[in-house]
């Protein structure tokens, strides 16, 4: 017997509203990305304290506005991730363990972005601060932003495993989504090592740590949005999740 929170999305549940917030969130993220003068092109880890201080001096308004925008909306992705977590109720799992894993990292991942915006905004708060301190805050922001991939890697890995374990005739997400998540996880891994070198493809402004990593996150959002929408369209009705599939037992369905 499924309890109220064991049931899946139905018209009027509000899930479509959350789903359709995604295009707006994507536009805002793109705007923040392009507005921040330190992303296109990415700031160099080789810049001296004076150069970094000059950068903030010259671009003060754009740094502030872009990071306030990103501070507001980096966490707007959490409701979308919760839609994915909700779809996981329909998976042929016997326990909610993998869903708990996804909920956990889904909460932590945007907080890492949030923390990086705090450091960028502090760096811009007092342009008359000593260049040494501005460099320090700038480093903290870039390392947090670039290297802070553990929860994104975990998110992709847990989702991939959850999909692989979803052994039923009509799985919630098709198998290729699992492989796609593995590829994205692999693409994110090198960014974690950005602190090791100030130059080359693995530096925080490099091809791998900046462009591949951020493109992978962008691609993940687009592809998972499509897969999520298809999964939501496929859901037959309120019965699902409460009976039928013998692999699904009460703990997994209701938790």
């Amino acid at each position: 017997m499924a309890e109220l929170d064991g049931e899946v999305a139905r018209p009027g549940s509000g899930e479509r509203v959350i789903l359709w917030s995604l295009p707006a969130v994507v536009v805002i993220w793109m705007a923040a990305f392009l507005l921040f003068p330190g992303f296109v092109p990415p700031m160099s880890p080789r810049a001296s304290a004076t150069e970094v201080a000059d950068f903030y001096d010259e671009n003060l308004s754009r740094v502030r506005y872009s990071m306030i925008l990103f501070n507001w909306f980096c966490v707007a992705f959490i409701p979308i991730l919760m839609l994915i977590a909700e779809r996981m109720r329909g998976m042929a799992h016997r326990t909610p363990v993998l869903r708990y894993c996804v909920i956990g990292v889904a909460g932590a991942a945007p907080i890492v972005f949030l923390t990086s915006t705090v450091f960028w905004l502090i760096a811009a708060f007092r342009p008359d601060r000593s260049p040494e301190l501005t460099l320090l805050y700038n480093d903290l922001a870039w390392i947090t932003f670039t290297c802070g991939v553990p929860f994104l890697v975990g998110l992709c890995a847990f989702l991939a495993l959850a999909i692989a374990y979803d052994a039923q005739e009509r799985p919630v997400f098709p198998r290729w989504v699992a492989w796609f998540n593995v590829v994205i996880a692999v693409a994110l891994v090198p960014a974690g090592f950005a602190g090791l070198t100030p130059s080359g493809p693995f530096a925080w402004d490099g091809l791998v740590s900046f462009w591949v990593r951020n493109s992978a996150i962008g691609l993940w959002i687009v592809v998972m949005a499509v897969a999520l929408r298809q999964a939501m369209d496929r859901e037959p009705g309120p019965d699902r999740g409460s009976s039928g599939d013998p692999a699904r037992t009460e703990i997994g369905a209701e938790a």
Partner: protein
Amino acid sequence: MSIVSNLRADPKRELWFAWYSTVAFYSLYSVVFFGLTRTQPPGKPWLEPEQTVEWFAGRQDGLLVGFALIFVLGGWSATAIALIAYSIRRMSVSRAFAYSYLVLYLIAAVPGFLFICVAMTVGAMRPERSPEAQQWLYDLGFLSFSGTMGVFLVGSLIWMTAILLDKNRVFPRWFGYLNLCNALTEVVIAPSWIFQRGVLAWDGVIAWWIDVAVFGTYTGVFIYLLREVIVRDDFGRGPLPDAPPGRPRRWHPLAKVVR
């Protein structure tokens, strides 16, 4: 019962995945903190700014590589938390306990271990930074790591309360009280925010050595007990049955004697 067969065909495969990941995560954690970065046992809180410059310079590669590994694999900490949250869900208590534990420990992830990774990486990547700035990063790293207290304090109390109220026999009652010991380590560490020297400083005999002994014991015990829970779990709602008879109790030090 090999790892591969556990993770492929076993009906409890999600639980086994979470359990093996828990073991792997805590092993990685030990290797990174005690071995690669040598940030445990921690540096001295009373170092002068110039000495912190030397401290960073003396372990630059270890800090950068070690914390890079945490940057990549730190998300696996979620598996232990998810498994413990599931163990609480399996109890007769309200889901509120499980969700509280899940949320508390995941909040802990950012101040409790991401901050030390960021601070130490930033310190190690520019050894030429001014001594005052290096000392600031040194303090941020160690104090955020050992001084993130409340989430673990309340989280352990939540787990303890759930175990003591539980009627499904998921954990033995003595383990409930062991949670209290873990919660108390977060009280004992509090003076490290105040003292730079002595037994209560962040590297002190009480604040570090006793706390690590308690935390290490606690972690080893709950990893063992979680394995027992998985073996006993029948996916039902009532009391957990005893371990299936005749099943080899691997890794139990008294396995041969017991059988």
